[in-house]
């Protein structure tokens, strides 16, 4: 019983240390565990991959630094995919703490592929009023975002001579850490008849499966796993040709694997010890009675 009591009363600092080591070790020494793309993520990748060069893609990146490890790798991979295919991404965010992350991502990818703001892509930045922004963009993007993130007027940009509203986009991609997916779906993609894909945090992925099964969205990438799968698809198809390195999500999945494995094992061990202790206490009570 000594060991059982020791396990059940294990100091939380021991657990914290094991979690810290489980996260850090695979990042220092990658385990190279297999990342197998699912049909849900392929649904987004294949739709974007099938778009003809020059198509406009609207990307709403509605997340903040708290969800950076899960969603930023997806945004970077999608931007790289768009630039590889010569598509024109229009990036915006409905979260006030988001623009800084998006700016870093789009400037990095645009520089890598030699793309120019206002011509090959546009970073619209942030606007207040979730539903009002979506409805406004359905009527006119240059009227809703009078200037881009850098303060340049959008109306005069070459990219907005081709498209001016959501219905002229070939694909709408929502990368969300909160409840903005339904807004884009109900007021952006569905009424304007634009196919839509969703990337979201792992905790919220479960609620979008009904939309996926009803084919209201073409694909769903949940959490860091979804981002890693997208990176893998991009790497397999264009990695060598465009010298694309493995992304952060693929490396992060090794760390996530180890932590999940530790939590599952700790739950199993704690439950076995719990049953042994309960049984022992029951026996003791019977003996004393």
């Amino acid at each position, binding site marked *: 019983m000594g060991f059982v009591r020791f396990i059940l009363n*294990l100091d*939380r600092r021991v*657990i*914290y240390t*094991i*979690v*810290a080591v489980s996260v850090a070790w695979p990042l220092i020494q990658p385990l190279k*565990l*297999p*990342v*197998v793309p*699912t049909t849900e993520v392929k649904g987004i990748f294949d739709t974007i991959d099938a778009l003809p060069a020059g198509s406009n893609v609207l990307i709403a990146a509605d997340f*903040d*630094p*708290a*969800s*950076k*490890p899960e969603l930023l790798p997806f945004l970077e991979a999608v931007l790289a995919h768009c630039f590889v295919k010569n598509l024109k991404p229009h990036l915006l965010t409905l979260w006030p*703490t988001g*623009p*800084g*992350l998006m*700016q*870093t991502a789009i400037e990095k990818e645009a520089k890598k592929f030699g793309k120019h703001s206002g011509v090959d892509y546009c970073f619209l930045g942030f*606007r*207040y*009023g979730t*539903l*009002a*922004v979506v*409805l*406004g963009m359905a*009527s*006119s993007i240059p*009227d809703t975002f009078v200037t881009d*993130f*850098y303060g340049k007027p959008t109306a005069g940009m070459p990219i907005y001579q081709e498209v001016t509203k959501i219905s002229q986009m070939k694909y709408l991609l929502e990368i969300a850490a909160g409840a903005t997916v339904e807004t884009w779906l109900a007021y952006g993609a569905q009424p304007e008849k634009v196919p839509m894909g969703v990337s979201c945090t792992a905790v919220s*992925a*479960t*609620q979008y*499966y*009904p939309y996926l*099964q009803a084919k209201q969205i073409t694909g769903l990438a*949940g*959490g860091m796993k979804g981002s*890693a799968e997208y990176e893998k698809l991009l790497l397999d198809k264009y990695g060598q040709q465009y010298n694309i390195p493995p992304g952060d999500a693929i490396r992060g*999945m*090794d760390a*996530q*694997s180890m*932590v*999940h*494995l530790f*939590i*599952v094992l*700790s*739950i199993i061990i*704690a*439950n076995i010890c*719990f049953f042994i202790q309960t049984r022992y206490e029951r026996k003791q009570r019977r003996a004393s009675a």
Partner: protein
Amino acid sequence: MLFFKRQWPIIVAFSVGIVMWARYYIPTEQSRTIQDVFTNWDRIIFGFAAALAVLSMLHHHYTKVRRKRPGYAFSYITLGSFVVMALAGFLPLHLPGFTGIQRESEGLHMWMFNWMFVPMQATMFSVLAFFIASAAFRAFRARSTEATALLVTACLMMIGRVPVGEWIANNSHHFQRFGNEYKALDFPALASWLLNVPNAAAQRGILLGLILSYVAIAIRIIFGIERTYMGGGD
């Protein structure tokens, strides 16, 4: 004045509600123009709400500092951070060590965002992993049938949704049944089934219930039955 307090908000809510509802079923240019007017108003109101939120935050922390309430030292940090971040974003300051100004990548504002705000918010969220691991170890017990079902599902999902689950499946025993090849410990397939069948069924039910309650609340507001938004209870 009582009219503007009681009847006027109900008239506005009814008119706007009916117009925006009807517009959805009349897809013409005129109806879209009406919608654009309303959404412009909406964005203006949001702008004022944001300004009000900033003023409210400043007032709260200023009062806390002035009255020296417990923890007022943190209010100094909040106010100081607000002023520095706002000035770095708004003013075209050419600061030593920074080649950019305002929101440019090489400016102080973006430096503070990338190297202070991002790590601090990411750290706050990352700490959750430690608490969840500790809580799962201490409190996740198979005390009842429901708790056991939850525990088994959680373990299957945790292994099935990470590459180690794929690795276990690939290295487990493979066998043939009904002309198909199966893996003995196929955690990813189990996790996928859980997400696509029981989860999707439950989510669909929740979603329908939620949307129907949205409709009910909207009807109550439009027809003036629900008046709590006017303040002071119903």
